[in-house]
């Protein structure tokens, strides 16, 4: 726990890393300063893009003692403001799942190779990032903890599958190797409470270590203080649960 006589510092900057297919992509890396080895977290950003909120959250995790990397999953769509790039990706129907898994696996490999990482790496995602984090945890070996915040389309109808998204993430559940924390708003429609029920049933079916929290009075994106979907009490509680979960499995 931080107290005011302690020295605290973070170094944060844009870096280049190797992602899917050996592509060079950019990422935001934040590390706590100081001696010793730290746990790490990979962030899977949301549909609104590799944006200011995600740079802030990368920094937030580092302030809590985690080497944190947020790869730009929209890198190949071109460059511009995060919104302009995200709008293009939205129009294109998102990024291919295989590519996103490759980019998140690349981020895992990047932090694992750092001399100041303790060997434990979690993955955190919100919105489409929650879905991507679920996919990466199931398909890319090596994640030690998973946080899925309101990831929609983990459960998918057959007519929703496509060349870019050929398999519903829920179908990979049997391969999930690590504990999962899921945070959901009961007023959300992507995912709906019924879809979260299906997700939970699948985790139970395969005997997975999971912890789901479902908030009344909240819908999608209730951590987003800059949007009307923000719910202060639920967000404060949710962040406490995120850090308690990561402390349990990564430290």
């Amino acid at each position, binding site marked *: 726990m931080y107290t005011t006589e302690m020295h605290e510092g973070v170094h944060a900057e844009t870096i280049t890393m190797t992602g899917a297919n050996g592509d060079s992509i950019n990422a935001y890396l934040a590390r706590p300063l100081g001696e010793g080895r730290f746990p790490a977290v990979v962030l899977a950003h949301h549909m609104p893009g590799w944006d200011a909120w995600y740079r802030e959250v990368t920094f937030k995790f580092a302030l809590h003692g985690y080497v944190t990397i947020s790869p730009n999953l929209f890198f190949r769509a*071109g460059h511009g403001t995060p919104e*302009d790039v995200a709008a293009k990706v*939205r129009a294109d129907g998102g990024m291919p799942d295989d590519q996103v898994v490759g980019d998140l696996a690349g981020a895992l490999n990047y932090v694992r190779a750092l001399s100041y990482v303790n060997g434990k790496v979690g993955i955190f995602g919100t919105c489409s990032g929650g879905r991507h984090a679920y996919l990466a945890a199931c398909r890319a070996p090596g994640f030690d903890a998973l946080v899925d915040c309101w990831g929609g389309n983990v459960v998918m109808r057959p007519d929703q599958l496509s060349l870019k998204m050929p398999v519903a993430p829920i179908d990979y559940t049997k391969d999930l190797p690590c504990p999962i924390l899921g945070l959901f708003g009961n007023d959300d429609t992507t995912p709906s409470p019924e879809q979260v029920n299906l997700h939970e049933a699948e985790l139970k079916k395969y005997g997975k270590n999971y912890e789901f929290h479902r908030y009344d009075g909240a819908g999608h994106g209730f951590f987003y203080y800059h949007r009307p979907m923000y719910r202060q009490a639920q967000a404060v509680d949710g962040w406490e649960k995120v850090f308690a979960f990561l402390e349990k499995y990564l430290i």
Partner: protein
Amino acid sequence: MCTMIAEKIKIEGSGKGTNGWFALDQADVSYDHPFNAPYQYALNIDFVNESLGPSARVAVELSDSAARELVRTILSALEQAEAGGHLPKK
């Protein structure tokens, strides 16, 4: 991408973005989380020219009722233009 409701159409015309006027060749229409409008979901229209990069974009985000009213109004204006003989001869 949360709702997976996103369509693209080819269009012709001009749009005024942050750097002035540019030629439009595509409209991207989605019903999904907006970036700015104060709703959980909005009818989002991006008037773009992808050959000019992501910043060549004129964006609007509308409530569903506003979007429906806009559709009706667009069609009404076109019907009046046709009745008045203003549309280009084909």
